[in-house]
């Protein structure tokens, strides 16, 4: 980039010098070329610099949010209740057990991809689409689901419940 600039400056300088040194009749034509070239150079540099400067401004959403997400506030859930949250591009299910502990699982049913929900009356996870049932460890207990739900890690940080994907061992 800098190399480029130097060459440019020199050329402009040269052009200016030769314009001063030589006094030929077609100065108007030369002037036109200079304006054309100078204008083009300035305009093209603006069009290169503008995106770069805009690029340098950090965007308002700084969180990438795919591996770890704040699923809820500490006071948000009552014991024996559940909440759907967005985990990356898919829904997740956060459950607060009756004893106050938390569990987080993928909320996408392994059968046909419906979103599952927590049933406080059964204390189990239920998929409404075809009556599939999972236990709180994500195991498919009854109904059509062929596989267990993915279980996520949950921990609290300050007054937030943070859910993250289980690290591969």
């Amino acid at each position, binding site marked *: 980039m800098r190399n480029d600039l130097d060459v440019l400056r020199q050329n402009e300088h040269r052009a200016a010098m030769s314009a001063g040194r030589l006094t030929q009749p077609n100065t108007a034509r030369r002037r036109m070329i200079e304006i054309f070239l100078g204008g083009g150079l300035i305009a093209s540099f603006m069009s290169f610099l503008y995106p770069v400067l805009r690029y340098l401004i950090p*965007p308002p959403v700084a969180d*990438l949010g*795919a591996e770890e997400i704040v699923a809820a506030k500490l006071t948000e859930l009552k014991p024996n209740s559940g909440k759907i949250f967005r985990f990356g591009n898919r829904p997740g299910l956060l459950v607060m057990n009756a004893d106050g502990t938390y569990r987080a699982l993928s909320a996408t049913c392994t059968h046909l991809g419906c979103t599952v929900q927590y049933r406080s009356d059964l204390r189990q996870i239920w998929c409404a689409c075809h009556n599939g049932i999972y236990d709180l460890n994500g195991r498919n207990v009854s109904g059509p689901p062929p596989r267990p739900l993915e279980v996520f890690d949950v921990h609290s940080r300050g007054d937030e419940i943070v859910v993250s994907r289980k690290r591969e061992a």
Partner: protein
Amino acid sequence: MFATLRHWFDERFNWDDLIAPLRHKIVPKHSLSYWYFLGGITLFLFGIQVATGILLLLYYRPGANEAFESVQYIMTQVQFGWLIRSIHSWSANLMIFTAFAHMFSVLFLKAYRKPRELTWVSGMILLFLVMGFGFSGYLLPWNTLAFFATKVGTEITGQVPIMGKPMMIFLRGGEEVTGATLTRFFGFHVAVLPGLATVLLLVHVLLVQRLGISVPPKLEVQWTANPSARREMKFFPNFALREMMAWYVALAALGVLAAIFPWNLGVKADPFVPAPAGIKPEWYFLFMFQTLKLIPSKVWFIDGEVLGVLAFGLVGLFWLLLPFFESDQPSRTKPWITGLAVFALAYVAGMSAYGHLAK
């Protein structure tokens, strides 16, 4: 004002002496002069790579859990992030193309002859480095295609006898392609290779400055016999301005490619998903890949892949040392080298096309 500043610098830096050779530098003028632009364009594209690469570093995060997301973030959230990344990717491909074109043009114009052997050797190493840039950079977005291309690529390295396995483990940072591989490749791509490339580039350009620009042997013979037939132009400003036009054309091409065909992001790599069918490396490795595929699995008693890898190693080494097989006399250049160059060009082009079309 510019003149004053320059004077100020000159007094403290002896600037004018430094650039004096540049002022006197000349470029031979003949019907093939256009090929002299290729090196400059490659240099320009390298500059673009450095600039956009540094910009990408502002937001990119290496690591299996974050790399893909951070590139996605650059593409969607950061203002003009799509432009910077697309230019980086397109410019990389263009640079590899112009570097190859530069190599072949030097070969056909026989510019590698004495005393320019070292320029050729440094240029060849630069070409290998550029391919290394391509190979390591391709993995960084951590998408499925890149993941499997890297897996296959490093697997081939593992075929080299004796040294292969340790080399593969060194490249992968373990037995398998994992997040550790990504960390390594990131290091190679942004620290090791740029460092090496910068040093070699300086050597390469300095050699060009010291030795001047070569003239094709036929013309050299003619011009020596009849000095009045000699045609040349000054490097500054005549050639440099033309070079600048070439750079601007390259810029325009990059802009069009980036804006109309933004570089694809693909799908995040998942090591547990089976490889998609017909996985292929980037186009500049395709001719080697296709050759390896065509070699029968057993040739005599040697494993086909091993044979292929060894052959490419030997050819690479031979190519690096090619100038030393050439005659010192411009009137007695060896036609077999030109023949070989034609064959190599046809082979690379043909195999690449075949590899591209093959299922």
